[in-house]
């Protein structure tokens, strides 16, 4: 049997048996329900009608708001429609300060320009898109009256009829999105490390508990079993996480309560990369801990130092979230156990240099390689020692 064939067989069993186990399905469904709840419930509770506060400066705005209200009425189909309230301002400056204070969502200037604050990830307003829509409708009607060329109509449809001006620092919006991604990524990372680490832990201990490991070892090498478990559980974890992310994105779109930001691609790619590194680093150690004990009751104890390490890394990262360029964040980038949390955060905020990222990845990968060797040795030393808990040093000494 070639080395990788064995790894794949172990991984495939893990995927099949764990993937269809009640525990996996229930935990997946539960998390998805929780997620959907978090997305939909606020909208449901938030009342059945949304009121858009529109500021008006100069002429022409009133017409657009009326058209928007009409469109909303048509769209509502019997449900309470979105409401539009108007506030008239004498100058653009007054409208801007009202925007900044939050008394209005957008302002229309002379019926041609749209002033917005810029949508953050949370609490972005959909008033601006409603107004763009109505402006387009109004213009198309005008064009039809003027009997204009079809090309002009199409041209209009392809563009936003109102000119948009975002108040304040234009990058604030992007910062907010990046912050949200960093925060979401951090929570996902933490969940992944603990959840899949625990799967690895219990998966290894289970094979010792029911002694099947002796049969496996009669034909497979310890590293094949260990690697197979990592691959199988890793794939299941990635699958679960991917499903969560896709469902969350789709639900956000359907719900329409939040303007879905265009995700900065570098952040997403880095997040996935770090997710894999973080999983490998922690799951390897959890797996080694699992090989030290023969009973499930002892497994959590054996893994306690690792759980604490994972939690410390997580807490550490909140400092980085608050100050992604600060000294704590910089130090955390180069500590392998905090790097999977901290580095994506700093990247999301654009607060990490290329060489820092490269060094951080390098340090983490080097640690993973080291841990895999150490864990592999502990694993092979611990596997066939049944009964009381084996010491790390003892397992390491007797392992191969």
């Amino acid at each position, binding site marked *: 049997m070639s080395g990788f064939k064995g790894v794949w067989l172990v991984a495939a069993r893990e995927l*099949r048996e764990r993937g269809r186990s009640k525990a996996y399905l229930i935990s997946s469904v539960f998390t998805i329900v929780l997620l959907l709840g978090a997305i939909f419930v606020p909208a449901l509770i938030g009342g059945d009608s949304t009121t858009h506060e529109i500021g008006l400066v100069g002429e022409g705005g009133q017409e657009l708001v009326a058209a928007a209200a009409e469109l909303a009425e048509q769209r509502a189909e019997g449900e309470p429609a979105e409401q539009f309230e108007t506030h008239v301002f004498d100058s653009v400056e007054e409208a801007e300060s009202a925007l900044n204070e939050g008394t209005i969502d957008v302002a229309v200037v002379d019926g041609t320009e749209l002033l917005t604050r810029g949508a953050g990830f949370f609490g972005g307003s959909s008033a601006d898109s409603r107004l763009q829509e109505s402006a387009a409708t109004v213009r198309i009607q005008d064009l039809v009256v003027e009997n204009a060329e079809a090309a002009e109509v199409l041209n209009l449809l392809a563009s936003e009829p109102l000119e948009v001006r975002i108040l304040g620092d234009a990058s604030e919006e992007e910062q907010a999105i990046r912050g949200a991604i960093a925060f979401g990524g951090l929570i996902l990372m933490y969940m992944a490390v603990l959840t899949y680490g625990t799967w690895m832990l219990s998966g290894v201990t289970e094979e010792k508990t*029911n002694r099947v490991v002796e049969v496996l070892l*009669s034909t497979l090498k310890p590293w094949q079993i260990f690697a197979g478990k990592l691959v199988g559980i890793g794939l299941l974890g990635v699958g679960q996480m991917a499903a969560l992310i896709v469902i969350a994105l789709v639900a956000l779109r359907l719900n329409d309560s939040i303007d879905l930001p265009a995700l900065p691609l570098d952040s997403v790619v880095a997040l996935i990369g770090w997710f894999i590194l973080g999983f490998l680093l922690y799951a390897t150690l959890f797996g080694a801990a699992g090989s030290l004990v023969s009973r499930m009751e002892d497994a959590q104890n054996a893994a306690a130092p690792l759980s604490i390490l994972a939690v410390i890394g997580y807490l550490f990262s909140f400092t980085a979230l608050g100050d992604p360029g600060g000294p704590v964040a910089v130090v955390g980038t180069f500590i392998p156990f905090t790097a999977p949390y901290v580095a994506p955060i700093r990247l999301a905020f654009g607060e990490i240099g290329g060489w820092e990222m490269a060094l951080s990845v390098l340090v983490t990968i080097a640690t993973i390689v080291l841990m895999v060797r150490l864990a592999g040795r502990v694993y092979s030393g611990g596997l066939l020692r049944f009964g009381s808990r084996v010491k790390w040093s003892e397992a390491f000494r007797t392992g191969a």
Partner: protein
Amino acid sequence: MAGIPLAFAAMLQIKDLHKRYDEVVALDGATFEVQPGRMLGFLGPNGAGKTTAMRTIFGLVTPDAGEVLWNGAQVTTDDRTRFGYMPEQRGLYPKMKAHDQLVYLGRIHGLDKATAGTAATKWLETLGLEERSADPVERLSHGNQQRVQLAAALVHDPELMVLDEPFSGLDPIGADTMADVLRRESAAGKAVVFSSHQLDLVEDLCDDVAIINRGKIVLAGRVKQLKDAAPIRRLELEMDGPSGLVLSHLDGIRSADMVDGRHVLMIEADTDVRKVLAEAESAGTVRHFIYSTPSLTDLFREAVA
């Protein structure tokens, strides 16, 4: 196996294994052979080194010295995929279906998916478990779990079978099934070795035995030859009359026991028992007199004393 010199026809050779765990010497030069078509009973008191020796065959224990040869060459990982192993502590995935489990174990021994599936079905049928093949192992009775365990050691049609205490915990029916299967596999030319404390069963099944004590093989060979060559004989006597007096004239008594009013003695092989019989007949009525080669149990006791 054409081309393999006759000297190597002993398929599995255990040579001078040594293994020490800190203060405990588990193996101290253990040497024995398992030949195809000749079932070997591997005997020894608890803690004598049986399990350690068996684990060494599978590379689960790395000996400090000595070697395990398969057809004359050092055992390789590849060879081990053609070995079947039933560990002393049974091990199966409790939540995995019996059939799936056998397929998986077949595949990690190198079978392709289809072959493993067919073999799993065949063995479940042979062992009377075809109805339970879709049940998780944890829902089977203890005896049926043992059967699945046996199937697990057989599913890849191994050339060598090593079973650690396969009969322990089995009811008489289960033991019969186990014995039948082993007999059949051995007759089909496989090398079969198993350890057991049920010596009458071993005597029944095995062509060869190896007895290990304190990590050393103290007796090994064909059961019949060992009995004939043994320096002791078994003598049983029951009589009306002063049996104690009669036996007190007997030389070379190794051990004496009283079972249901019957004397059971182990005596030196060269002791002349005709004199005892004559004396007994003159002193009273002899109800029962048996002089025989020692039983396997007798040999075992003698060997590990």
